[in-house]
């Protein structure tokens, strides 16, 4: 079943040079925290070798919405884009030896095992640094490579809670909810990881020395919480859940239109509220005697939200937005994914790419972010089948002969 109008066919098919052409990344992580950094590097030209266990592969192959292919969920297909799969069992000594040879010929290693696991296999930072002093290694874990909690298992959900983000999500006094999508912390940690890698590659180009990038998911999430630490440090202010609104501005939240659809309105300044009052054809609301000042609106927050809510509820979303935008009020659709597929702007920007996956069909995936003018990233293919590049990589790159590959396969080392 196809629910949506087809987005334009893969607009990123292009042959423009990419900034990471010639960079080889070995991604031995599972799920998203770290592997998404590899995906970003791959979009911009790096060759990404996804090293997986020969039998099971990355568990993300089985996590999420199933497809006709037993080794690939939609999540796997989309987020393992551009990668090649190479199977190597790191629990066997001979597998580790092959892996080390791969590292000799690589620029970046990405892993997200529980801290200590790579060390058990003889693949800790000191080991891999000795194998290849130019190697940049990204390690992502829930709590980082150091500190008392380093050995705890840390998934994004737990790390976001630990970082203080989940505490802030939901209505005051009620159950905290998830901040929209579960693996947000995995993405944020990966973005920091990719930045760390690019900074480290730059340093390496000048000095010849690789280094270790140590990202804790909780730390990546905590870093984006603006003044929360400073305000507690100075005034003891403990920020609480704000529901759909904001403690510093009003009206600043989510409102339901007459057709049942939601929209966001964000009046951060008095001027914006004045414009909203005009859009509502109730300019007197923005007078100094009423709600012209932020201070007064915050004090009468419920009343102001109710006035705006009633105005919004009296017309369809499109009508509300048209009026808001005509008066330059910051407002926008609160989109479901169905809304997004229908949206002219998403279409015009090519945010949805339709990419063919063998044995599955066309899959619509989010396009490349960020958008570069001269060297845009691109999606060349979706998540590979397990071990699709094992022979090519081990044969061509490491020079293993066919009978050697057969023997390794027989012993399930690859």
């Amino acid at each position: 079943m196809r629910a949506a109008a087809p987005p334009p066919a893969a607009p990123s098919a292009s042959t423009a040079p990419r900034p990471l052409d010639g960079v080889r990344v070995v991604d031995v992580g599972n799920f998203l925290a770290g592997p998404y950094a590899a995906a970003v590097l791959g979009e911009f030209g790096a060759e990404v070798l996804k090293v997986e266990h020969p039998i099971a592969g990355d568990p993300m192959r089985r996590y999420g919405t199933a497809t006709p292919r037993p080794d690939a969920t939609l999540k796997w297909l989309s987020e393992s884009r551009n990668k090649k799969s190479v199977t190597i069992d790191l629990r066997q000594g001979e597998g580790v030896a092959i892996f080390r040879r791969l590292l000799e010929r690589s620029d970046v290693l990405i892993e997200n095992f529980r801290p200590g696991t790579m060390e058990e296999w003889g693949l800790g930072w000191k080991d891999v640094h000795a194998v290849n002093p130019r190697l940049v290694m990204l390690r992502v874990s829930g709590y980082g490579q150091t500190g008392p909690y380093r050995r705890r298992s840390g998934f994004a959900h737990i790390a976001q809670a630990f970082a203080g983000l989940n505490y802030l999500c939901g209505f005051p006094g009620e159950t905290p909810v998830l901040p929209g999508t579960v693996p947000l912390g995995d993405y944020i940690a990966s973005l920091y990881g990719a930045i760390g890698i690019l900074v480290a590659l730059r340093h390496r180009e000048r000095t010849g020395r690789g280094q270790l990038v140590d990202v804790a998911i909780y730390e990546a999430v905590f870093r984006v919480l603006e003044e929360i630490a400073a305000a507690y440090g100075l005034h003891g202010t403990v920020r609480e859940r704000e529901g759909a609104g904001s403690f510093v501005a009003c009206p600043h939240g989510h409102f339901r239109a007459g057709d049942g659809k939601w929209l966001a309105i964000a009046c951060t300044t008095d001027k914006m509220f004045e414009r909203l009052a005009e859009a509502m054809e109730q300019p007197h609301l923005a007078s100094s005697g009423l709600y012209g000042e932020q201070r007064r609106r915050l004090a009468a927050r419920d009343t102001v939200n109710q006035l705006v809510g009633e105005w919004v509820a009296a017309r369809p979303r499109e009508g509300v937005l048209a009026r808001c935008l005509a008066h330059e009020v910051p407002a926008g659709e609160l989109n479901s994914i169905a809304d997004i597929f229908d949206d002219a702007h998403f279409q015009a920007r090519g945010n949805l790419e339709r990419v063919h996956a063998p044995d599955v069909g066309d899959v619509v995936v989010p396009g490349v972010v960020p958008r570069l003018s001269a060297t845009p990233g691109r999606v060349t293919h979706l998540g590979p089948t397990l071990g699709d590049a094992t022979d090519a990589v081990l044969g061509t790159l490491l020079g293993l002969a066919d009978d050697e590959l057969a023997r390794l396969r027989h012993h399930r080392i690859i």
Partner: protein
Amino acid sequence: MSAIPSPTPPAAAALPLAGIRVVDVATVIAAPYCATVLGEFGADVLKVEHPLGGDALRRFGTPSARGDTLTWLSEARNKRSVTLDLRHPDGRHLFERLVEQTDVLCENFRTGTLEKWGLGWERLRAINPRLVMLRVTGYGQTGPYRDRPGFARVAHAVGGIAYLAGMPKGTPVTPGSTTLADYMTGLYGALGVLLALRHRDATGEGQYVDAALYESIFRCTEELAPAYGMYGTVRERHGSSHNDFACPHGHFATRDGKWVAISCATDKLFARLAQAMGRAELASSSTYGEQKTRLAHCHDVNEIVRDWCGSLTRQEVLARCYATATPAGPLNDIADIFGDRQFHARRNLVAVDLAETGETIVCPAPVPLLSETPGSIRSLGPKLGEHTDEVLRDLLGLGDDEIAALHARRVV
């Protein structure tokens, strides 16, 4: 508080972005945060601000005794403030001369604003072909909504995560922080700038990065789009759980009124939880051992976990979960964080004294942590125009008289 360390001094090794000059003419958080990250790793960041009032971030949030807000002090770290009125022809001329000597320009004006001033991409590229320019707006430089005003809250809504945050059928809520899209766009922007610098160093060719707040959010919605595209599945709000794929997976209240997160993505992890609860039998194949059984009876499973959590303090629940390696953790508020050993051990909080007022500003330390060339906080957000004269003198070679005249005419 006394336990919070001062910033670690910069590493002996030259920071990786030493020698890179960034002009940050943007406001609030999104594009400026890109410049912040570059500054932590050694770039010289010139914050170009309007002479009257400067960046609105100076007034966004809790004020310090100096007047500038805490977010400004923390996030404008390491920057030098230079005032310049781009609405004045002489200001634009000085700006062009600055751009000649700059590697990276970060801006987030409404689309068309720089063009109106004759400072669009084509013009700036002509001045400096090696320039990398980050342009951040709510909707990007192209497309039908490009001229709409864009704020992070609106980007969360348009990008699809606000719709997913909240209780089922309840009002969608803010996804934890109203500035999430700003930070994420700053991260994508920094990524784009670093990629573009790499290309430039190889070829001499600059380029621009076109970042949209809503796109940074939408990119992180994992299989939301593929699942709708293939099966027409419209994901809805799931409260604190993630009922699509895993159970139990959510937030549970403990006896002492605090909250924990528990996340059992696999059967193995649920078996560990069952053991932690002292009810190993729950993970047998005939009860809730399999994910699909748990998902089918999610309400019952959650109730068992909720009852167990409610009978113990948070510390007790977590101690038992950690003993069996069940993925669980506290839902920390900021007070918890200040008392947490891991935050201290990792030095995630650093205390910087604000000399003028005697206030101690606690900031999040730079992320990510690099072993050889870690980022650093060398100073907090500058006062408005604090470095105008030195930059005009040292970088643009203006004499004292010229600088005084520019001040008198409020060009700087």
